[in-house]
């Protein structure tokens, strides 16, 4: 079979990514003058939107590298036919990581009153947490986290491309190559566990409610971004299929990606519910305060109730019922539709995680937030598209490639 090895960016793709990035930049500028200079809220509305979008999209593209490393450690072969897609998505960690780093450092330097732990002022709880919640640790850990994601991701991509022009001479060197891959993948996974799966969501998001804490929070955030990351991979795989690339990827691979989206939607719900139920059951005021703005109870109405349950429906009920059938996981249209829905749903999840804590009285979601999101989507499209042109679309010399081509679920 003649295969198209290199991706050529279609003109429409480039136009769309540029247009979306333009919308994003315009939104940020307009948003800055509308909300960023607001004396009353110290520009918190503006910075919160930047925080939500940059962190969400950074963690989503970083999930692509997690997917590569997890499948490498599991000796998975099925993903090899389209592995260059998550690799290209992980390149977007570089621009998004830099933007997020700037936003996160601005949050403590400019201080738009998003992190209250910056000024404990004799608050016993915040002083008790100051070993973790302090500017020095926050900045160093943020730089380390993003920096190592970029460096280790780069190493994983290098390992993958190393074989493109020098095929492995024998089985023994193949074993050595796989071992080298697992070593670097496990280093990435360990760092991922220390950041995305534990400290980073505490530091970047949970510290908005500095008095409140939940040990489920980081897992919950990870599940949210991983399922969106799988959805993003699926969208790009389907797009490339539609453009006539990825000849060896077929509905068997789409089926497995669909399974990932299905399974991790359920996993997200499991964590979401575990966090909710424990707090509901214990009914301790310092814990239930988190849900005051998010859930309506008998004596209290939360402003974000509608958004909260709407997000729950599209993140749990829709994937559960629509992706359950085998046929729908193998259908390109259904899978793409669900992928877009899941990304949107988890974007809303991040929205309520941040805004329901900062602005508990009323929902402020408007075109500005969508404009900023569009900018990040455009940036992801742009950098992933560029990255796809740089390397062959199939890792043809990888020892597991045949396993992926004959993959059958």
């Amino acid at each position, binding site marked *: 079979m003649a295969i198209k090895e290199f991706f050529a960016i279609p003109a429409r793709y480039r136009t769309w990514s540029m247009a979306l990035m333009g919308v994003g930049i315009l939104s940020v500028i307009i948003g800055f003058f509308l909300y960023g200079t607001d004396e009353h809220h110290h520009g918190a509305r503006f910075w919160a939107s930047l925080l939500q979008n940059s962190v969400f999209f950074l963690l989503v593209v970083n999930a692509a590298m997690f997917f590569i490393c997890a499948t490498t450690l599991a000796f998975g072969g099925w993903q090899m036919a389209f592995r260059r897609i998550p690799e290209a998505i992980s390149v977007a960690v570089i621009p998004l990581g830099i933007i997020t780093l700037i936003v996160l450092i601005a949050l403590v330097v400019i201080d738009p009153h998003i992190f209250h732990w910056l000024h404990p002022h004799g608050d016993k709880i915040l002083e008790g947490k100051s070993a973790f919640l302090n500017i020095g640790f926050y900045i160093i850990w943020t730089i380390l986290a993003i920096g190592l994601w970029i460096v280790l991701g780069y190493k994983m991509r290098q390992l993958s491309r190393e074989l493109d022009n020098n095929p492995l001479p024998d089985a023994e060197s193949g074993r050595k190559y796989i071992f080298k891959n697992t070593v670097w993948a496990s280093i990435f996974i360990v760092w991922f566990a220390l950041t995305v799966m534990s400290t980073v969501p505490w530091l970047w998001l949970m510290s908005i409610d500095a008095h409140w804490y939940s040990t489920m929070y980081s897992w919950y955030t990870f599940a949210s971004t991983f399922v969106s990351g799988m959805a993003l991979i699926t969208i790009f795989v389907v797009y490339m299929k539609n453009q006539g690339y990825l000849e060896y990827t077929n509905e068997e691979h789409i089926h497995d990606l669909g399974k990932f989206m299905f399974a991790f939607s359920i996993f997200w719900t499991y964590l979401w519910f575990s966090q*909710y*139920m424990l707090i509901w059951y214990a*009914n301790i005021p310092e814990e239930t305060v988190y849900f005051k703005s998010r859930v309506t109870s*008998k004596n209290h109405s939360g402003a974000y109730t509608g958004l909260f349950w709407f997000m729950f429906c599209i993140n749990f009920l829709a994937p559960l019922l629509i992706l359950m059938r*085998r046929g729908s996981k193998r259908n390109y249209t259904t899978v793409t539709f669900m992928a877009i829905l899941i990304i949107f749903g988890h974007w809303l999840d991040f929205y309520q995680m941040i805004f329901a804590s900062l602005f508990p009285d009323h929902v402020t979601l408007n075109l500005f937030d969508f404009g900023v999101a569009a900018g990040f989507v455009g940036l992801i499209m742009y950098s992933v598209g560029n990255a796809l042109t740089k390397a062959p679309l199939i890792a043809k010399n990888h020892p597991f490639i045949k396993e992926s081509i004959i993959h*059958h679920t």
Partner: protein
Amino acid sequence: MAVKKFVVGCFDDEGPLFDAVKKVRKSGYKLHDVYTPFPIHGLDKAMGLRDTSIHTAGFLYAIFGTTSMLSFMTWVFTKDFPLNVGGKPHFALPAWIPITFEFTVLCACVGMVITFCYLCQLAPFVKKHHFHLRATDDLFVMVIECTPKTNESEVSSFLTSIGAKEVNVQNAETGWWLGTYDKDQKLFEGQSETVSA
């Protein structure tokens, strides 16, 4: 039970088996089943089997589990025996979700196991016919069902020609073991002569 006549061909590798399955289907012989030591990816497709409907059954069992458990607990805690547990409302939905979930899973998996046994005609008191004992070890056993028009020596030589290492003819019970099954009972019982086309 209906006793039918089968031509059994044994293959020693899965590669030739795939080709053989395709050739048998192309030649129009009635493929009864293929018995393999381990599940082979893609063989169901090659044999032209339809998708199993056991997951539909599983979904229905799960729905049954969810609704029955939720309605049972609602009845118990709001109508039959309302208790004040730590000031929680009587209709304490979040507290019931784990139980509902577990019961859903229990219903789905137990129901699916029973359905699977029913579909495969498996039960402790049912003695199944083995076409070849080594099908559980290292042989890939393909079984072709004879119809009144089948010439089994022709089928045997055909199987040998497509790579079967061992070919024999067996009479075996088939069909459903409780209630109704196909009407041609005892069709080939005791007959050993060739049925010519």
